[in-house]
């Protein structure tokens, strides 16, 4: 039983506090968003599994009073796939770094999306590799600085949302750590959604991204996030983005929320057809 109100204590693993994250790191704000979403959905934490990869963001599973798995770099979604398939009753949430999800783990992301397996990926996108000390990520904007792009990045960034949509994710949203109201709601929507959902949260890494790109401290970075994004008709499906309106801005909001046969269900259908009724479902 969870207490009413906004006391997140039952959702957080007290013994692991304080977190490892740096002062002002946005990852804590996202973790709070996930906890808030879990609370608002009233989920039984015995039946929640949080599966992370490696990175500052990958440490998130440690902070939830749930079944928690801290796997290898980039592979969390593959671990989560096995877990979810044998134990479909678990609500599986996968906090991922931008490098974790789109550099080394890009393939598992698009395949999970293609299968439409009922897992919620929350991408902690700070535009950099935080854990290893500030190298470029596939999400680092062109010309941004990092320790491996000291003269400015010459590689364009992925658009996570477009990639997730193209790969077949059925719930796709982007928000920021500035948007403390929308963010937990979008995550809650993603958890509720039956199918593969991706919520990209633009997060601040004051220690590396902020410092290397002279964006100031955490409070400054929140404003930076506010100013470089524009909300598109939030909380409703938004199939087409009119690019001209958005010049210089990243769209945020809910980009897709669509039902399509879910993978575990599909598999259970197969089991039924094969006569293997023993399977728990």
């Amino acid at each position, binding site marked *: 039983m969870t207490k*009413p109100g*906004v*006391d997140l*204590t039952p959702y957080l693993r007290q013994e692991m506090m304080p977190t490892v*994250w740096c002062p*002002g790191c*946005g990852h804590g704000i996202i973790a*709070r968003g996930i906890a808030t979403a879990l609370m608002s959905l009233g989920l039984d934490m015995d039946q929640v599994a949080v599966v992370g990869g490696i990175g500052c963001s990958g440490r998130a599973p440690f902070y939830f009073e749930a079944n928690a798995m801290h796997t290898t770099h980039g592979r969390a979604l593959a671990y989560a796939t096995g877990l979810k398939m044998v134990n479909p009753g678990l609500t599986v949430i996968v906090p991922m770094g931008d490098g974790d999800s789109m550099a080394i783990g890009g393939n598992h992301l698009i395949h999970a999306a293609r299968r439409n397996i009922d897992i919620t990926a929350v991408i902690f996108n700070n535009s950099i590799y935080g854990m290893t000390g500030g190298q470029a990520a596939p999400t680092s904007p062109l010309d941004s600085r990092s320790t491996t792009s000291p003269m400015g990045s010459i590689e364009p960034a992925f658009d996570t949302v477009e990639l997730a949509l193209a790969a077949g994710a059925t719930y796709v949203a982007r928000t920021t750590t500035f948007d403390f*109201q929308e963010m937990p709601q979008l995550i809650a929507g993603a958890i509720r959604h039956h199918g593969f959902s991706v919520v990209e949260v633009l997060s601040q890494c004051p220690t590396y991204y902020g410092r290397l790109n002279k964006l100031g401290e955490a409070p400054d970075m929140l404003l930076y996030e506010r100013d470089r994004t524009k909300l598109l008709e939030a909380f409703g499906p938004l199939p087409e983005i009119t690019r001209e309106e958005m010049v210089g801005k990243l769209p945020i909001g809910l980009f897709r929320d669509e039902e399509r046969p879910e993978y575990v269900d599909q598999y259970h259908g197969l089991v039924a057809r094969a006569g293997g009724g023993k399977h728990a479902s």
Partner: protein
Amino acid sequence: MKEPTLHYQQGDRQLSVQRDWCKGCNLCVEYCPSQILSLDDGERIVVGDISRCIFCGICAVRCPDFVFTLERVASPALAMGGTA
């Protein structure tokens, strides 16, 4: 060694502060509409004049470190600034 949680109350609203977890990032300080938050020498959060606190909870949602909890409690109030 964990410092006890501080509890502040106004009507049925209660603001709890777990100072131990504070890392001194200044986010709450900048966003508190009543401007009553500041950092101490050890770069830990200090709640100043609580009588000016409007119990809005902004500090809680802005803090990356779960330092603040704002909730409504039904039970009779604890003494302001008392410990749990």
